């Protein structure tokens, strides 16, 4: 097993996911299955293949520094469950002690 139950718990916590015991079990199993499957790639001979950081064979896709259209404030806030003074209102995150 490459991925332990503890790994899944840790990642779920970082991703703010609340998982039941059953889900935790199932995900541990599934993630290991995925990794095992991916290991198949290791069987390929990549001796003459240059390494890459990206799947697309492209570099340097740029846009010019031009200002375009924005959303209206009402549009930007349309999906916010709570708003105030043109801003999205959220529960306060405590900083410091």
């Amino acid at each position, binding site marked *: 097993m490459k991925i332990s139950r503890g790994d899944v718990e*840790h*990642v779920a916590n*970082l991703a*703010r996911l609340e998982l039941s015991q059953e889900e935790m079990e199932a995900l541990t199993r599934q993630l290991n299955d995925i990794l095992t499957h991916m290991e198949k790639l290791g069987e390929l001979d990549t001796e003459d293949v240059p390494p890459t*950081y*990206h*799947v*697309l064979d*492209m*570099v*340097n*896709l*740029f*846009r*010019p*520094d*031009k*200002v*375009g*259209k*924005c*959303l*209206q*404030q009402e549009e*930007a*806030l349309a999906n916010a469950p*709570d708003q*105030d*003074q*043109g*801003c*999205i*209102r*959220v*529960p*306060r*995150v*405590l*900083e*410091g*002690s």
Partner: protein
Amino acid sequence: MTTEYEVVIGLEVHVELNTDSKMFCSCPTTFGAEPNTHVCPICLGMPGVLPVINRKAVEYTIRAALALNCQVAKYSKFDRKNYFYPDLPKNYQISQYDLPLATGGYVEISVDGKKRKIGIRRVHLEEDAGKLLHEGTGPKTSLVDFNRTGVPLIEIVSEPDLRSPEEARLYLNKLRTILHYTGVSDVKMEEGSLRCDANVSIRPLGSEVFGTLTEVKNMNSFRAVERALAYEVERQKEILERGEKVERETRGWDENRRITVSMRGKEEAHDYRYFPEPDLVPLEISRDWVEEIQERLPDMPDERQARLVRELGLPEYDAEVLTSSKDLADFYDACVKHYPEAKTVSNWVMGEVLGYLNEKGLEITDLPFRPEDLAGLLRLIDKGTISGKIAKQVFQEMCKSGKAPETIVEEKGLKQITDESEIAAIVEKVMEDNPKVVEDFRGGKEKALGFLVGQVMKATRGKANPQLVNRLFRERL
């Protein structure tokens, strides 16, 4: 016996680039807009959108990196830094992890007259987060404005080469000056376009091993940086002196209480799970592009300072002050072009001009008159049209109205009286009115002459030519 400690500080500086549009979308970057009006589906992180890299932001990063003597990478890429915070709509920040745009530079600072090179570990490009407002919305909620979200930001990480809070301030100051020269940012700490975090540790003098560091955040001014670091160094010393251990943690500077406080909790998820940003293809930076940017790089402050000393013969001190900002150096150069007495111009710029700007809290670019007007004022003194004293009065008026010095002299009737007979009449009147002082002078009291000259200057409201007044008195006494 108390142990001597060595202070070890490294700074992480974030600088907002002043491109017109954001890093990955075409929203404007201008300050002061109504909240959430400079946003679009891309910077709000809506599903299905595609970011596209702003070429100018990459160019600015390279320009800043070159000014900081860094090596620009041939190959670079963007990564996702994953964390949750209300000011981060995508729940990840597009940043650079293992392949930053530039590495291995340095900044030279001058500590007690000695030059020190402070290493730059890396310069990378990322996007800014939004703004959280805590005021005016009750104690349990905060407001989020996403206008700054996605503004291009460079992070400049120094090596742990700084050995005192003062060095940290000098480094930060130099960094700001250099970046301001490059023109890639406004670098205003007060407006948040320059932000600074610090890693601080101490170790017994002579030790090769680093002590446990703390990360200090929330320092909102240059002074706060020096104060916070000084506080943190003392705090760590006291802990070690008590025989306890410094805990590795993030601490926030509380400007009101002048202390650092633990920010435990916020930082517990230090596991950012970086991975390559799949929506952006990598960067291949051609050497031609780097060279082109290098060629257009203006002279940096150190070079300009050296040039003022070498070519104009200015003292080191003058040269350093005059090159402390590019705008000031440009202003000085323009003045000298119109009035080639380098030291005289320097005295006026460092004295009157900077004095006025400091008093009013203004920038050199706020002056309502042109460099040629200051040159014109100095020529008026040379020609004897006005005295140096009156010139200061005219200068104040130039600052107020922006009018040319010649116009002010004309309008206010400040022209020096050079007509000998006119002044002679006043000299004689003053002698008549002050027989006692005249006697004193004749009795050998040199100081008495100063009083008499002063009386003439008073009577003419400073417009009499002082040399002439002196001569006329001496002839009569």
